[in-house]
């Protein structure tokens, strides 16, 4: 059950859920949450590879990489929420259908 293959399939399913959410949801807060799911799916895949393939050889690069990804994802989420707040202040909703200032 707990094998490399299964972990990666789980990761890919999570990644697809995230990507589907980004592409289809209208509420921008949910879009940001979907992005977080995508990042964490990648973390899961890196950790699975690291655990099943390289951990026995004493390599831990994947762990460090996951730490960096978590930090960067946090920074990106902070900036995303800040932009969302300014948008909310200016137009009182956070619906992506309403964001149509530019055309052409």
């Amino acid at each position, binding site marked *: 059950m707990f094998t490399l293959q299964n972990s990666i399939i789980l990761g890919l399913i999570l990644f697809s859920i995230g990507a589907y959410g980004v592409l289809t949801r209208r509420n921008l807060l949910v879009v940001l949450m979907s992005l977080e799911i995508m990042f964490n799916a990648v973390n899961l*895949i890196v950790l699975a590879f690291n655990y099943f*393939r390289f951990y026995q050889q004493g390599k831990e690069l994947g762990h460090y990489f996951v730490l960096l990804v978590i930090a960067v994802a946090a920074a990106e989420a902070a900036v*995303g929420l800040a932009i969302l707040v300014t948008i909310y202040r200016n137009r009182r909703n956070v619906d992506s259908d309403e964001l149509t200032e530019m055309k052409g």
Partner: protein
Amino acid sequence: MNITTLNGILPILILTGVGLLVLLVEAFIERDRERRFAFILSLAGIIATLVSLFSQLVHHDADLLLFGGALIVDHTGLAFSIIICLGALLVLILSHRHVTRIHRNAGEFYSLILFATLGMHALTISNDMMTFFVSLEVMSVAVYILAGVNRKSLKSNESALKYLILGAFSTAFLLLGIAFVYGATGQMGFMEIKEALLSEANAPFQSVGILGLILIMVGFIFKIGAFPFQQWVPDVYEGAPSIVTAFMATCVKTAAFAILLRGLFTFFQADESGFLMSALTVITVLTMIFGNFMALIQSNIKRLIAYSGIAHTGYILLAILAALSDPAKPDITPILFYLLVYTLMTVGAFAVLIGASRGGEEVETFEDIRGLGYKHKLLGLFMAFFFFSLAGIPSTAGFMGKFFIFKAAISKELYALAVIGILTAVVSVYYYLKIVVYLYLKEENRRYEKYSIQWNYLLASFLTFLLVLFLGIFPQFGFKLLK
């Protein structure tokens, strides 16, 4: 840490230090003085970075590997960084005073520019998936904020959010690619990954690694704004404040090309099926055609520059293809030269556009620049010259840049690509000249009030004007600098 290491990361240290200092200045000095002080400080920081990059380039004799191969200070990286810092310097000169019109705290703007430049420099010299990813994000997050720096403007908000969501979406694919490459090889360094992908012991995981590389490519193509993933470019460029658009169109693009080039040169031999190369060829053709034809039908100047920027991306990709077809002795000077010239022309054009904007209103449509050539003769002349150069009229640097790219493509027998490139470049002349026509179009029965513009717009546009003219007549100096 020894002195060589310290010298290698000196530009990074300067940019970090000055960026933090500028941010602090804001807290401790009163508003009016703070503006000028923060400006001078950040200008000094960028100039110091440029000087240290130049001295590294001049004293460069062997590639310098730092921190166990995480960073590589080599000639290509330094040349790209110099182009980026030059662009950042010009953007900083332009943003003096102008920035307070779009954002209350000038210091924040300057320090974000410095941090973005820091990320770009680290990107050009990164040699490891981890440094690559972190510096890419340092750059991107800073630019996301910059795009939305005009908080009151709905357009700026929308541009920042679109950029952030699409940027993070592409970063997720890039990360998935890195995860697969790591899973296939167990390595993070570019060189180690290449060796592991080519070694026999790794054969069962070869295809996973190649899949990872393709996903990483998708992320890159998004960042440079090439064909299938270019939709964000016009919206983000149009919505962001002009000064930030100038920064994005030049520096961010140059940095993305720097890392794309390093990645391609390292990895494309690992892809034995040749899929990456043929995909890149298709992308190049479609990017050149799409960018130029979409630019034809634009009525907003910033959107037009965005689409023409996509077209220029196509030309640079063509130069990359030409360089890749001779992997033993790749000649990347045409790429560097074109990026240098493109940076100068684009920042110059934006300098004029920003200088011409009156009373907080940005110049957007063709009507806004109608008769500009009569209102301010020098400004009109510069603007006409920059658009001639972007169109590639001989005696300008833009012509030399295109000439070297097409020459490289023809000498590598990429005839079809070169022909498509030249034909689309001819198409581009139409929309660039349309702008020049509007510059000197008279309105009936209207007197033109002459207007004065601030020294910094004139300085920036004059500097770029001189450089573009100089590189157009004596391109060998540019080549010598970048070689």
